[in-house]
Each structure stands twice: as C-alpha cells, then as structure tokens.
C-alpha cells in the first residue's frame, strides 16, 4: 500500500476503513492463489481448443450417453447462482435486518457464477460456431430456447440488481480517492447521496428485489423442464421444475456460507459476519435440507410405486446398481451431514456451517450427476446396449477451469468492490435500529395511558 493511500484510508470512518482495506491492500498469498487459478483456467482453455479442433469425441460421451459433465456443471452452476439474487431479494423484501452484511457477497456469487454456468451448454455444443442459429432460427417450442431467454433475462436483472445497490459505495470510494479515480467516477454515475437520490435509489432497489424473484424462479424451473419435457424415464416428472428451484436455492445458500467463512477469515470481517449470521443462515440450510429430503423422497417413491419397467431400470441403477455410490454420497451430503450439523445450535458456527456448506455443494453436484447420467445410460429402448460413461481428461480439465475461473473472478471482484455493503451497514446503524424498535412496538397493543388520554 502506498503511504498516501494509507493516510487517506486511515482518515476514513471505521466501517469504510475496514471494508475498503482489501481494495488497496493485497497480500502475496492473494497473487499466489490468483496465479494458480489463472494457470488452471489456461489449462482448461487448452483442453477446450483441443475439443473444438478434433470434435466432441475428445470427451467420454457416447450414444446414448449424450450429456455429461458439461450439462451437469451447467445445472450446478446456474443453481449456485440462485444464491445471491434470490436470497438477498427475499431477505430484503421480508425486511430481515440481519441481511445487511451478507447481501453483497451473495449477489456477487450470482452474477459471477452465472456466466460460468451459461457457457457450459456452449462448451457442450458440437458446433459452437453456429451458436447464433439459436437467434436466427429460433424454434420456440424447444425448452432450450426458453432457457436461453430466461437466463439472458436473469443475467441482465441480477447484474442491475448487483450494481444499483452498490452505487452509494462506489461514490464513497470515489470520494475517498483511494483507487482508480476515473473508474469509480464513471461507475458512481454522479451519485452524491442527497436525500432525494437516496430515496430514488431505495425505491428502485425495492422494485428490483420483487422483480428478480420470479425471474430467478423461472430460470431453474426451465432448466428442470429441459429434462422433464422429454419422455425419458425419471426425467419426465412434473416435480422437476420446483425440485430444481429448491435444489438451486439450497446449493446457493451453501455457497454463500462457504464464501462468508473464507471472506471473514482472509479479510478479517469478524465484526460483519457474526456468529448470529452463521446461525441464521444455518437455520435456512436446515430448512432446505428437510425440503430436499421431502422432494427427493416424493420423486423416488412415485417412480418406485408405479413400478414402470423402464423407470425401474434407472431407479435401481441409482439405488443399488452402478450409480449407488454417487447416489448414497448425495444423500449423505445433501441430507445426513447438513441435517445433523444444522439441527443443533452448538454446530451452527462458522466451522459447522462451513463443513455443512461443503457437504451440500458436493451433494448437489452429485444430485445433478444422478439426474443426468443414470437416465442417459438407461434409454427407454432396453435392447440398446447399456452404455458407460467416464469423463475424459478434457472434460475434467474444463470443469476444473470453470471452478478456478469462478474463484479467480470472485477474488478479483473483492479487490475492486467492497464485499460488504458499507452504506447499508451505516444505514442499519443510523436508522434501522430505531425503525425496528418502532415497528415491533407497532405490532403490539398501544399503551393504556394513550387510550386514557382520548
């Protein structure tokens, strides 16, 4: 950190000082990790170039196992993206005051992971050079096209929803003059925090928070429908839309928890991500682990009870056949571990939620695997020889690069934008404490002394 920047930073109020420090103070470890992630991304790009040159034969895919790692990652990453926008919007709309410290980091996950999810089906294309045919020859009966539209809309909405609530913070950085003045002057868009500007801003945020909820719900519903609209055994299910949305939010909460624990540690944000935040988020995770069990149980029981032969082949392949390991690992990660850790207050700590969060993220990835692969290798036509699928190094490299790429852009984002909303924390301290007290008082019967005065 340059001395004049250090002086400017030291002159700022306490919240600004703490939360803007990561923007100007970068450790050697940061560069080391960022460099490693960058190398993994380059490796993945090399693998993709090979795939484009030689063809999708470089993957482990075959007939009838047409969809593999890329489609699994597509569903998985778009699921993670439900973290931010949806959670933060729901918490904002429901006036959950404890949201203030965590919305920004969650919204960043959404916007940054969304791009990595959206490129997966493009990586999966046999002819990525013809991608624009989706626009020029759009065929609106295809669920894939609905998906293109809903993800496009979601990306736009969630980016706006990240940017608008960040404007006051960008103005704070501009006024502090600690970094890239022209960049922040441009982004702050002339915001001066006048009462009128603040009122407009809050009104826009209020509208956006409501608008993004149905958009986010539509996104993962449609991803579920991509599978459900086919006649494939164990895909053709009416529960898939809501099941996918629930799973998306679940993996999203887990991803936020992991990000919170890491951010708290590396940027010393203990004052902002308090045990109470982990406790509350842990309760949400608990609720979703139960919902996950309910949906999964309903889905499998319905298939089992009907006992249709083509469904049963896939069903038993998962429960006791070649996919038993990923299936039961999924149950462990999505249900047993998070439930047992999150049902007790003593383990709803940063460490407990971290373990549960990692288990859920792995479990939800496996759930996507268990949806895509077992059905693919068990086509309805049983005379078709049962296929096998083992991802090639090309697919695994691209998957590693996707994870590394997301970590990299998230790390870089924390160097340009405060990862905790400064103005919302200050607003909370200055106004909300009083407002909440008034609100709670408003829920209760008024004082008898006032009645007497009538």
């Amino acid at each position, binding site marked *: 950190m340059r001395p004049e920047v250090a002086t400017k930073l030291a002159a700022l109020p306490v919240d600004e000082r703490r939360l803007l420090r990561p923007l100007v103070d970068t450790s050697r470890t940061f560069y080391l990790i960022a460099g490693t992630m960058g190398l993994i991304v380059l490796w993945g790009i090399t693998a993709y170039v090979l795939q484009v040159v030689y063809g999708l034969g470089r993957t482990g895919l075959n007939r009838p196992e047409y969809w593999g790692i890329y489609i699994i990652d597509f569903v998985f990453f778009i699921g993670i993206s439900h973290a931010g926008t949806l959670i933060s919007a729901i918490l904002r709309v429901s006036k959950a005051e404890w949201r203030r410290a965590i919305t920004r980091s969650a919204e960043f996950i959404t916007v940054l992971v969304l791009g990595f999810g959206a490129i997966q089906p493009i990586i999966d294309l046999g002819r990525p050079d013809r991608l624009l045919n989706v626009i020029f020859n759009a065929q609106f009966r295809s669920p894939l096209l609905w998906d293109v539209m809903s993800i496009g809309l979601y990306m736009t909405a969630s980016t706006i929803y990240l940017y608008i609530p960040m404007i006051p913070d960008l103005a704070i950085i501009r006024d502090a003059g600690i970094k890239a003045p022209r960049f922040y002057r441009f982004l702050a868009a002339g915001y001066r925090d006048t009462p009128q500007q603040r009122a407009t801003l809050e009104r826009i945020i209020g509208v956006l928070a409501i608008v993004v909820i149905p958009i986010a719900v539509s996104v993962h519903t449609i991803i579920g429908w991509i599978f459900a609209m086919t006649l494939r055994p164990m895909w053709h299910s009416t529960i898939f839309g809501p099941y996918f949305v629930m799973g998306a939010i679940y993996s999203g909460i887990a991803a936020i928890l992991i990000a919170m624990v890491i951010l708290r540690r590396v940027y010393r944000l203990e004052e902002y991500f308090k045990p109470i935040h982990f406790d509350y988020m842990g309760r949400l995770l608990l609720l979703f682990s139960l919902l996950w069990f309910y949906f999964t149980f309903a889905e499998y029981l319905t298939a089992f009870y009907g006992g249709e032969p083509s469904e049963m082949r896939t069903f038993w392949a998962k429960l006791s056949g070649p996919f038993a390991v990923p299936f039961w690992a999924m149950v462990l990660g999505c249900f047993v571990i998070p439930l047992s850790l999150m049902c007790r207050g003593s383990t709803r700590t940063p460490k407990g939620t971290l373990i549960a969060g990692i288990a859920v993220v792995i479990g939800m990835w496996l759930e996507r695997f268990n949806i895509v692969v077992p059905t693919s290798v068990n*086509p309805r036509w049983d005379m078709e020889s049962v296929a096998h699928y083992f991802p090639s190094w090309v697919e695994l490299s691209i998957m590693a690069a996707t994870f590394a790429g997301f970590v990299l852009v998230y790390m870089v984002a924390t160097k340009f934008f405060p990862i905790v909303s400064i103005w919302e924390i200050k607003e909370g301290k200055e106004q909300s404490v009083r407002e909440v007290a008034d609100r709670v008082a408003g829920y209760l019967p008024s004082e008898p002394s006032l009645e007497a005065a009538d």
Partner: protein
Amino acid sequence: MPRWGMVIDLDRCTGCGACETACKSENNVATVSSDQADLGRATAWMRVMTEVEGEFPNTTMRFMPRPCMHCDNPPCVKVCPVAATYINDEGIVGQIYPRCIGCRYCANACPYTVKYFNWFAPEWPESERAHLNPDVSVRPKGVIEKCTFCHHRLQKAREDARAEGRELREADYQPACVDACPTGAIVFGDLDDPQHRVAELKHDARAMRLMEDLGTEPKVYYLTPRAGT
C-alpha cells in the same frame, strides 16, 4: 399428400444385415474404428438389433431391423432449438445438417435412440472414398444425423415420373434398405394409398408399432413373429 411408411415382417428377417450395409453405402455413413465403436460411437441409420430369447440350449435368436420411426408426432422435432430437425408434409423426419448446432437434445428426446452424433470429422476407408453417393450430403463433425427414408431417392423418382409424364408408382421410390433385403421383409410405400402394400399390411393382425403408448405415432410397423417360428 402421401404419408410414407414402412412395414417390417420379423418372420422374414434372417438377420443378414444387408439392409444395414446398403444403408451405410447409400447414405455415406462414416466408418469408425473398432475402439470408437466399443465406446458406443458407431453410426447405423438402419441397424439390425439382436436379442437372444430363452435359456441354453433352447434359445431363439430374434432380429429386429431398426430405422428411424419417422413419427407423426416426433419428440425430436419439438425440442430442437434451431428447427434443424423437421417433419415435412409427407411425414419424413429430416435433419438440416448445416443448421444443426450439435446440442444433442433431439438425441436425448428420441425414445427409439435413432439419432446419431458426429463425434469426429467423418472418415472412410481409402477404397470407399471414391464411391461416395453424390446425392447425399456428407455430414461435418459436431452435428446430428439420422435415417431419412432415403428421401433423395424420392426427389429423383418424382423427377423421372414427371419427365415421363406419369404418376409416381410404388416401385419408383424405395429406400436402399428395402431394395437390399433378400427376403422381402421390408415393405415401403404410402400408408394412405390403398394401392400400396403397406396400407394393407399395417392392418395385419400381427402389425404393431414400437412404444405406441408414448403417442409418438411411428410410421414404421412391425409384423410380429408367428408362434412357433
């Protein structure tokens, strides 16, 4: 408007594989190496499926030639995001190779597993390369391909009939697999034209279609084997 369809008599099928070979040669289907074939990447628009019934030594080998079913309500056409898979007025389900983006959604949606993907650029043995059929386009890597009921033959037959100033006859348009079948197990024609044999055969007591309960309305009928054969 004709509605092209096929009737395959399983009693007559000997499993010789002539239909499969004729199809590959007619339609410029690429050859893959045996290790690629083991990976499940061989392409055969028409394929003779085999099934062994019964316990050793009392076993019966059953054969079932399987082309595209050319469904009247094709699940593959609905899901294609770029309308590269289509069904034409005469009921033939085709694929526009230069438009296909290779997402393989149609291949997943097809309950009969008859859509094939080009995992690599197509290859043929040196000896075959000079004999590719000029009437059928060669597919590039990364797109889906499928049985077309040899619709290039229909185009040619129509032109010939028009040149001779007469109506199209049943014998004028026959796919390569039908021509090649030595036992006459495969019959092809207009399902709606009472003059054509298929129109009658589809009402045979032994006639059935695959997975009729899915509502896909296939235009390929099978005559199931009689008992004891």
